[in-house]
């Protein structure tokens, strides 16, 4: 094991160190020998596999975190923080403006909110919706930045992916991949994605180290059970003996087999060798099967103790914040997001509701198609779904605020986190004259919400035209509104998020989006 010239450990060495801590000497030797084989790889190959962090000196850097909340289906900004009162528009009756009394303003703030008290029509059912966006603004106003956004696709999957890549703003890599590259080298699973559709896709830049790409998770509550190769399985030999067997497999049986030798040029095999080496030991050494486990010991359905497992020390707190964690995937994902950050497992986590209907104890948890049910009932859907998104965001922020961040004295985990409410696209702006219930289609034109102590809070970048309800862009450096900027501004938002997170974008050609940063 060697120190880098600045005395820090490389990603691989970090993972090795974790495994050494967890295993006996022979197992540690196994890992070291694994390293010997990796040393035979070319530097380019190691870089691609993520074996060493050669691209950036991310190790030892104070990390920053991104949580992407995927507001699936099209969360409309004019139904939330850039809402318009009907009296403010000459065309208010036929545009998606609100009765004046529903739109809340806040002293000294350009932010707005819609407090809706109405119904969501689901077939023959009319479900009451009471949603208060103003309570979220009152609580988080100083950390909120709303950016106008003009996208380039109204196809769900394509637009979802573009909301993460800035429409290919930086070689097609996603925001989360950029953050993983910048800060994730020393993290065991830098990038976890629990989203859906286009939000779940990798970026198109295949040149990044392997650790930058997402680990996909479908069931966040049960997923931690797979974070150890043997815990929770009955009647097994001692862990040290399993390590001996892994050593025989990794260093003797596989390297000598005709199969492995014949296909030695396979990228898939090379990736596998890397994944089952230090990464595997590092994950097990961190006891993530316990630390990320929200499930309570509840025999007979969840007999943790019987299987030698235990719940996370934070489980009770997390369950209190997200009581529907097991039945509502979105709440389960938020619970996992908190634990992944708190335990320094990940720097980039993606969560969000999907298109499936959810009923929780007889009440609606998620309408069909999430925000896209706006096709059927725009106003009720937007109010319901924004309430759902903001409710989960608020609880997640509260948990992160309560978590000290010892790397920087006197700060909380939240102080180093950016929450990006990504969405597919906006909605069409028209409505039948005066209608409170109407359907909408997809529209390029929209805006996005960022919440973070790292962004310039209490800010709206761009503006909405009272005559068309269309938003226009802004200068990403100064933040000055630019009403002539009515075509795609994906790059501005993409750059703004990365710059707020202090991600080095040298060579990307991205604008210096200082307007997004708290400390410009």
């Amino acid at each position, binding site marked *: 094991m060697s120190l880098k010239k600045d005395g820090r450990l490389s990603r691989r060495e970090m993972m090795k160190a974790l495994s050494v801590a967890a295993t006996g000497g022979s197992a540690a030797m196994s890992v070291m020998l694994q390293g010997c084989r990796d040393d035979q790889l070319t530097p380019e190959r190691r870089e691609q596999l993520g074996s060493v962090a050669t691209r950036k000196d991310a190790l030892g850097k104070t990390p920053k975190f991104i949580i992407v909340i995927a507001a699936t289906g099209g969360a409309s900004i004019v139904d939330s923080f850039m809402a318009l009162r009907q009296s403010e528009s000459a065309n208010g009756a036929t545009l998606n403006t609100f009765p004046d009394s529903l739109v809340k303003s806040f002293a000294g703030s350009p932010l707005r909110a819609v407090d809706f008290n109405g119904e969501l029509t689901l077939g023959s059912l009319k479900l009451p919706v009471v949603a208060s966006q103003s309570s979220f603004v009152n609580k988080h106003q100083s950390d909120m930045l709303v950016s106008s956004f003009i996208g380039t696709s109204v196809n769900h999957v*394509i637009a979802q992916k573009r909301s993460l890549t800035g429409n290919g703003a930086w070689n097609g890599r996603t925001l989360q991949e950029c953050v993983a590259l910048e800060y994730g080298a020393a993290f065991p699973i830098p990038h976890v994605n629990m989203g859906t559709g286009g939000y779940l896709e990798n970026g198109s830049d295949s040149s990044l180290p392997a650790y930058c790409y997402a680990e996909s998770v479908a069931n966040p509550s049960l997923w931690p059970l797979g974070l150890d190769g043997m815990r929770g399985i009955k009647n097994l030999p001692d862990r040290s003996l399993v390590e001996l067997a892994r050593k025989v497999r990794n260093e003797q049986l596989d390297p000598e087999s005709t199969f492995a030798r*014949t296909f030695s040029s396979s990228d898939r095999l090379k990736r596998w060798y890397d994944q089952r080496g230090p990464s595997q030991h590092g994950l097990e050494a961190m006891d993530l099967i316990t630390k990320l486990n929200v499930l309570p010991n509840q025999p007979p359905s969840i007999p943790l103790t019987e299987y030698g497992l235990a719940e996370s020390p934070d489980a009770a707190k997390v369950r209190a914040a997200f009581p529907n964690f097991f039945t509502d995937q979105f709440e389960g994902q938020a619970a996992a997001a908190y634990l992944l950050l708190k335990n320094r497992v990940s720097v980039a986590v993606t969560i969000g509701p999907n298109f499936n209907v959810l009923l929780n104890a007889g009440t609606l948890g998620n309408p069909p198609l999430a925000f896209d049910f706006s096709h059927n009932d725009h106003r009720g859907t937007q109010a319901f779904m924004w309430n759902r998104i903001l409710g989960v965001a608020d609880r997640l922020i509260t948990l992160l605020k309560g978590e000290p961040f010892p790397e920087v004295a006197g700060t909380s985990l939240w102080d180093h986190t950016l929450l990006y409410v990504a969405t597919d696209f906006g909605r069409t702006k028209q409505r039948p004259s005066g209608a409170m219930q109407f359907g909408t289609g997809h529209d390029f034109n929209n805006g996005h919400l960022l919440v973070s102590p790292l962004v310039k809070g209490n800010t709206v970048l761009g503006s909405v035209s009272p005559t068309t309800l269309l938003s226009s862009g802004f200068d990403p450096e100064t933040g000055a509104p630019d009403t002539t900027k009515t*075509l795609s501004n994906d790059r501005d938002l993409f750059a703004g998020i990365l710059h707020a997170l202090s991600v080095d974008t040298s060579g990307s050609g991205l604008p210096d989006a200082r307007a997004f940063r708290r400390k410009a």
Partner: protein
Amino acid sequence: MSTWAKPPAPSTFCAKYPTAPTCTGGQPACTYCHSSPPTRNAFGLSVESKLLPGAMRPLSDGDFQMALPAALSAVEGLDSDGDGVTNLVEIQKGTLPAEAASLPRDVPCGAGINPSYTVCKYDNRYVYRKMIIDFCGGSPAYADLEAFSAMTSAQQTARIDVVLDSCMGAEYWRAKNGQVWQLAHRKVRPVGTLKGGPEDTGIVQLGDYYDDYALFVYSQLDDHDARDVLTANYFVVRSATPVTTYTKAPFISFQAVDVDHRAGNLTTAWALGYFTMFTALPRNAASQAYRGYLGLDIAKQEGLYPIANEPRDFDAKGVTQPLCTQCHATLDPLSYPFRNYNGITGSDQQVLRYVPSRIETFFSAQASTITQIPEQGYIFGQKVNDLKQWAQVAANSDAFAVATVMDYWKLLMGGPPTAEQNAEFVTLWKDLKTTQNYSVKKMLHALVRTEAYGAP
């Protein structure tokens, strides 16, 4: 060059390079030259620099079309993406001249002795084991593999065919959630809680997409005509006991489109309920069919065949804006034939079926010109009178054959064809259209005989 990708570019490119793999069975996507229009990629920038330099921008389509071949010639010797391979070689080999990671990998076959594999040559034993894992779902037994090894080469070839047929008759291949069924996920785009029908019923029952899966799987099995997935005027009933079978049926519950207006999976209850839903002009239904069954994603600038004077924006969605027209000049006329196929607007007697004058009945208030949406439209630049004709043109297209073979190629090879494999791939889809009469079963027999599949 104007700010947007030029509609004539793909056809002009293919006129210059007719044998280029990207022109075989299709046309290059706009992303061949653009990262995302109007932004050009490395190759696009090279071409642009040679395209009537000094001439006023934007170029007219005519000037552009005239100047493009020379500009392409001028950059043939360059290596725009810096991967060590010239643009011309990349064009000829089918790799991307703007993507450094995409390049021909003409790795010579290694010499030497291998006790278990005939590397670089078709290896019957390797094929036999792999084929059984691929098609039957698990490794063969040791004794079976030994018996195979003891056969003559001719016997082995015959045995491979017999076992392949056997596997394709097995549940792993043809049952619900089996391998063929899984190929339909991307086309059907199921949502569990929206499923209608008696099995695995969802909370909101939009349509029974298992019917869509059933027709798709049926069309892929037993020498059936793969095109039926788009053109069938019948439905398919799946029975799971004692083993899975698929049977044609003229009518089934929950499917309401009358026989004269059916077009396979384009007009099922799920397709209408989910992809058309409440929209007047079902662009989403058209683009999903184009993407799912023809492999052409308009959102990715693929399969653009712009029609003159389109889009006309009958539904006042603003699609005549410059940013929109590059796709909508293809997409809107592609969507017109769907105009009378109703999603879930109207009464129970009107939903999920063909409703003459649908736009006039439900959507006339949406825009002043909306009722002018014609039923006549275009696909691949060819005029069609209705959706059934649309489906026929689609099913007979090269794109359909390419997409059909591509599904299986990716399933069995682990990725799309490489530059070196392209010739075999082209042979497969061309044969599917001709000698194999759209039998996926026959195509798969040919596929396992390719060098791409059979040489370790």
